[in-house]
């Protein structure tokens, strides 16, 4: 039964692939637009051995990770602040929730006005995209700390530092992990998006696709898209792995 199901999962992609190949081989469509799969494979081959491509992947990934890291740290700090301090939540909370309504990409033109089209603007944008999910996750996590555990911390005379690092952060870890996962997805979307919209002919996967578009090289665009998808999935996989190891103390349902 297992084998059957796995085979069935492949039938649809296989069928689509076959359909695609037939379309182009029989010449029913304009092959400049709907390029034959063979061509895509060929271009993929040349791209994969091209060091410029790998450089671009590395650049995008590096941007993603640094933006994500700063956004995540800021988000955890902000979330913990909003969760523990009632007046911080009252003063900053409403503004935070209101600003969150501004759709992510709407910030880009403003950022580009202030910071130009370079690395700075992109990094700030990626950090911003990470900030919101992570802050919300950390906030939820802090709220989830039970009064019972907080009293135990008082009974054992925890210092403020100990309360933060030995009670709040571990107790909030599951929710923070969820926030970080969502933040990671947002960060990758923001990375690629900022490379599209803040195009400065620099380095990155987004730029490769722009080049493809400019040269009407559809194969390159497809290869670029596949690369985006694969790198995104890889990042998510790694994140899920790390999350599982860090939360190994949780009971498995």
């Amino acid at each position, binding site marked *: 039964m297992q084998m059957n199901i796995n085979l069935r999962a492949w039938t649809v992609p296989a069928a689509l692939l076959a359909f695609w190949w037939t379309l182009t081989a029989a010449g029913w469509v304009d092959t400049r637009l709907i390029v034959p799969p063979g061509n895509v494979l060929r271009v993929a081959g040349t791209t994969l051995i091209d060091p410029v491509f790998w450089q671009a992947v590395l650049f995008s990934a590096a941007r993603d990770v640094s933006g994500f890291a700063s956004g995540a740290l800021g988000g955890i700090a902000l979330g913990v602040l909003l969760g523990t301090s009632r007046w911080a939540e009252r003063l900053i909370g409403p503004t935070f929730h209101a600003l969150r309504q501004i759709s992510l990409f709407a910030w880009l033109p403003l950022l580009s006005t202030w910071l130009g089209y370079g690395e700075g603007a992109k990094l700030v944008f990626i950090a911003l995209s990470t900030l919101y999910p992570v802050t919300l996750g950390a906030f939820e996590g802090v709220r989830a700390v039970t009064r*019972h*555990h907080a*009293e*135990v911390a*008082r*009974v*054992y*005379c*925890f*210092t403020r530092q*100990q309360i933060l690092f*030995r*009670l709040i952060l*571990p*107790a909030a*870890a599951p929710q923070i992990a969820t926030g970080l996962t969502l933040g990671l997805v947002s960060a990758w979307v923001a990375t690629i998006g900022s490379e599209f919209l803040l195009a400065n002919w620099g380095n990155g996967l987004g730029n490769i696709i722009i080049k493809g578009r400019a040269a009407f090289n559809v194969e390159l665009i497809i290869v670029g898209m596949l690369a985006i998808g694969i790198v995104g999935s890889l990042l998510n996989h790694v994140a899920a792995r790390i999350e599982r190891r860090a939360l190994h*103390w*949780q*009971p498995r349902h």
Partner: protein
Amino acid sequence: MAHAGTLEIKNLSKHYRVKGRPLAVLDDVSLAIRPGEFVSIVGASGCGKSTLLRLLIGLEGDYQGEILLDGQRVAGTSLDRGIVFQEHRLFPWLTVEQNVAVGVLNAPGGQAEKRTSVQEHIELVGLKGFETAYPHQLSGGMSQRVAIARALVSRPEVLLLDEPFGALDALTRSHLQQELERIWRAEGITAILVTHDVEEAVALGDRVVIMQPRPGRIKRIVDVPLPRPRERGSLAFTAIKDDVLGEFAPAPRSALKSPSIERRPPALDWQFSY
């Protein structure tokens, strides 16, 4: 061996403000506890016994009267006083060993010393071999034992227990009661147990403090001069238990006269039916 503390409670009163009006929870409670003694406090719900314990551990403040440990006024929490709650309140992200180590986190002394104490206390509560287990892998009784180890690891002078076995099933409860007595004797500290189970109170305490509710006051203190380990089936035990239970009956009853059973001459019991 931990040093057993002397606890004195003098004219302790506490009230909360509910909708602007004061609600007295404890009213003029006075109690002197000898070092190394085991005191049980019984009372129905609402008699303030948990509040009393929270005041003793320092989780609540703002009271009138005095609480003195070895002559020093009690202010806030401290490692001199340990507590076991009804819920085990272990940190789910720490192993058994790490949870017990929380108890000595802020204690004076070296790392090696602390590690020894942690290991000793894990053995004391009978959980040797479970050091690397996580709370979700333990049963309720085992988790509560970890909580007891955590409370004792810094060698406090007083151990407070707030209905520690209330959440456990009857079999585990009676087993842990015996364990608690053994641990108390091994550590040689002062212990105060709050419970609503009269049998538990009489089985474990040197004295049973009976509290009455609204406002919380000490109604009576009953001595339990029975040898340990206590035989729960013995006449003396049952008499004292009935004595304490009698305080909770709706109509006031005087204390039983003596544990002996009076026997009426059988002849007087006969009656002819016509």
